[in-house]
């Protein structure tokens, strides 16, 4: 496992530098995990992009940085602590870089990035020189970078492509010339495969597209906005519609309107928007209208830290609305799962005729990860489960007509959509009888509540409730959700290599909670550590509430906005191993 990090001022093209390196590393055959840190401001402010890569899957952040690319001295000062002895700092000569005292064993490789850039174009292109220089330090082949340059700049014309490519090459050449002074960073073996690098947001959008979503109604908010921005690029090709509404109240209501009228529709937001959508989610639940809502969590409450990580909406996702209506809450934890839950959400919403929420988070949404291209296909993913009546069936019903909310043992009733003759009915957020007529009859009320909740009984047969990596009889079971699950899986893999019986368990369906699966998966572990990124231990609360947690359980919490690293978990595990009862 090797990690590379670039740092500079926001607005300097740090993102595309990282994306290019990630793309090339992926093409060479590495698993990559890329993530950014940025401030909630547009220009200026320190920003970084880090890429960890390996021949094995890698799906989390870590502290260590083997090669730090510094576009300013600030980057060195803020990040040098991550670079171990033997590591390397590649820095633009333009700012006269210097390593602080205490940087013994770290090599500084000064490269005239700005100068090179100026030679082939404008100074902002210095990050291209940095890409080339990084490739040389890693002793990587240069060809894959050519593809990346093309992909990224083709739209802007061949001249721009050339200029950038020349800059990359020159950065590479410059380092090679001075290669004697550069330490060797031993790269892991690549494991070439047909993979591509995408973010969780993109994966989720692809899943939605594959799952038949054709209407997206939303309002911009970090870190969910690019789901909308991605779909608006794609939808014109499939005849769909993306509408940017005036707020989240209207966004979800429009998606519900589309769902009522028979089109798979979604919205995506973050915490503040989720709070605003709670009333409408209740409507969809009550009127039994499919709708999909993505919540890309960030640090709350209120505006909180809009560009920082947190997994603190779990309770709001499950319990946020007034009253009691069934909701399904999915929780993907990797780009693969984001893709899968992206399409499954629509199948579930349609088959259960109820809102399906997806608990994503900032890390999952924005970080890049390799995904097998083969797993990305649309065929068969959108399953028609809408229990749609045919017009013939509807016409044959006779008096008293179509029982839209018929009470069935699964709780799922037959549906009609506008346009279907004889299928007219009232969909309402008020309590109603089986025909959709509003009524406050107590017996009806109870029967309808039971019917609606019954729809959730089968969810765990329809999709994974939780997943386990590692042995059931574990010395330690690490439980997590969302992006944090990637961390515990990485930890598990490392400890397994050391021969330790550790398991990583992640919750895939948050509501209805997979109680039995959780009980079974956690029953045989000596200790269970619930790792989550919030202050109150929401996942632990759920485990307690459902009777899963007992004395073996403890929480590892983090709520400073910075995602968990594998090191965080290792440090915690060390404290556990210390003999208990002995104080010092």
């Amino acid at each position, binding site marked *: 496992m090797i990690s590379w990090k670039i740092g500079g001022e926001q607005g300097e093209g740090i993102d595309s530098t990282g994306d290019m390196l990630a793309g090339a590393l992926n093409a060479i055959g590495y698993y990559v995990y890329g993530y950014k840190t940025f401030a909630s401001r547009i220009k200026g402010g320190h920003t970084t992009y880090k890429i960890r890569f390996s021949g094995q899957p890698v799906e989390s952040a870590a502290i260590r940085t083997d090669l730090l690319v510094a576009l300013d001295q600030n980057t060195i000062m803020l990040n040098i602590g991550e670079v171990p002895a033997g590591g390397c700092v590649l820095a633009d000569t333009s700012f006269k870089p210097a390593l602080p005292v205490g940087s013994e064993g770290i090599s500084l490789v000064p490269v005239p990035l700005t100068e090179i850039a100026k030679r082939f174009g404008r100074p902002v292109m210095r990050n291209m020189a940095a890409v080339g220089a990084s490739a040389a330090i890693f002793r990587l082949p240069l060809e894959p970078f050519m593809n990346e340059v093309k992909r990224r700049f083709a739209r802007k014309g061949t001249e721009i492509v050339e200029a950038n490519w020349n800059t990359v090459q020159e950065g590479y050449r410059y380092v090679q010339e001075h290669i004697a002074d550069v330490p060797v960073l031993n790269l892991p073996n690549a494991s070439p495969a047909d993979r*591509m690098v*995408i973010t969780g947001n*993109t994966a989720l959008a*692809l899943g939605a*597209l*594959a799952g*038949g979503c*054709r*209407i997206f*109604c939303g309002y911009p908010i970090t870190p969910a906005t690019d789901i909308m921005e991605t779909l608006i690029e*794609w*939808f*014109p*090709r*499939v*005849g*769909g*519609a993306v*509408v940017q*509404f*005036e707020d989240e*109240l*209207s966004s979800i*209501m*429009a*998606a*519900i*309107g*589309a769902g*009522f*009228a*028979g*089109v798979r*529709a979604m919205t995506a937001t973050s915490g503040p928007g989720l709070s605003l959508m709670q*009333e*409408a989610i*209740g*409507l969809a639940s009550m*009127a039994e209208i499919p709708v999909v809502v993505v919540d890309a969590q960030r640090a709350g409450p209120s505006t909180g830290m809009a560009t920082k990580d947190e997994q603190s909406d779990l309770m709001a996702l499950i319990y946020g609305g007034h009253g009691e209506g069934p909701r399904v809450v999915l929780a993907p934890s990797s780009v693969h799962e984001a893709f899968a839950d992206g399409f499954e959400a629509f199948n579930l919403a349609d088959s259960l005729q109820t809102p399906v929420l997806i608990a994503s988070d900032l890390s999952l949404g924005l970080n890049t990860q390799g995904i097998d291209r083969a797993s*990305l*296909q*649309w*065929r068969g993913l*959108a*399953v028609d489960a809408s229990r749609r009546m045919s017009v013939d069936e509807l016409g044959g019903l006779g008096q008293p007509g179509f029982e839209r909310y018929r009470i069935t043992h699964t709780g799922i009733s037959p549906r009609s*959509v*506008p*346009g*279907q*003759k004889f*299928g*007219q*009915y*009232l*969909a*309402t*957020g*008020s309590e109603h009888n089986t025909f959709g*007529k*509003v009524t406050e009859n107590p017996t009806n009320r109870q029967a309808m509540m039971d019917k609606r909740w019954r729809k959730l009984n089968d969810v765990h047969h329809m999709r994974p409730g939780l997943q386990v990596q590692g042995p059931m009889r574990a010395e330690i079971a690490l439980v997590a959700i969302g992006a944090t699950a990637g961390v515990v899986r990485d930890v598990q893999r490392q400890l397994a290599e050391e021969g330790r019986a550790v398991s990583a368990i992640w919750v895939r369906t948050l509501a209805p909670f997979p109680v039995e699966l959780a009980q079974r998966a956690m029953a045989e572990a000596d200790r269970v550590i619930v790792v989550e990124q919030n202050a109150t231990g929401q996942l632990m609360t759920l485990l307690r509430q459902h009777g899963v947690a007992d004395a073996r359980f403890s929480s590892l919490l983090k709520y400073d906005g910075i995602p968990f690293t594998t090191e965080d978990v290792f440090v915690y595990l060390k404290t556990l191993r210390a003999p208990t009862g002995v104080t010092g």
Partner: protein
Amino acid sequence: MATPADFKTGEKSWWCPGCGDFGVLAAMQKALVAVGAQPETTVIVAGIGCSGKIGNYVNSYNLHVTHGRTLPAAMGVKLANPKLTVLVAGGDGDAYAIGMGHFLHTIRRNPDVTYIVMDNHIYGLTKGQTSPTSARGFRTHTSPSGNIEQPVRPLMLALSAGATYIAQGFSSWQGQLAHLIEDAIRHPGFSLVNVLSPCVTYNKEDTYDLYKSSLFNLDEDATYQPGDRAAAFSRLVELDEMVTGVIFRGDSEPYHTKIPGFGGVPLAEQPLGLDDGIWREIVANL
């Protein structure tokens, strides 16, 4: 051709005897017949309020949403299937208090839906509180010494927001009202019909008699040309919105015709699935 009976559910009405909303319902049903609508391709999106119950009485597809959120829901319905006739109905509170933002944004998007506001200048369902259209000085449970707020002027607001069809009717003037709604439905784009619909239980000021004696019928004014936004504004200022008839009508390009790549078979009628070439192209470009 459907008949008025085809648009009735036969459900016993919930409204107080004499409520203006009966007239709105009747006119709406007449207009639906007049435009040749069918129950199965008609959708009524209704809000919360006495007014919001209107959908219960119309045999059509009905979507009864949360308070104030009718218009976004109607946008969703129309996008899903532009072939549907989409009517939206709700009270003055629903439309102009909690729903005000959606009202103006829907206007500027101009979806092909007809909005019928059943404006009784009061909150009926919650038993008589001041509404945004209540007059200054009006006494209710929440303004016992008289309303101190200036009422909203829905027609002027719609004008300013760029609405392409704006009309006002009176629930007792059935002929004109049915005609206005019919016109509104035919209008290709967003149409507003604000209907003065007296609440006989909680509003003892804005009565049938008052309206009969003080409304000015613009449709009967041959000098009035409802195609000039600034002129319409002046007239509304002058008459303090106490008018009925078509106030403004302009060119209109409905929202769904402007969405890139949108059109053809309605999304609601398309099978699940997509073209393999498009998929491959999208994935290749990631």
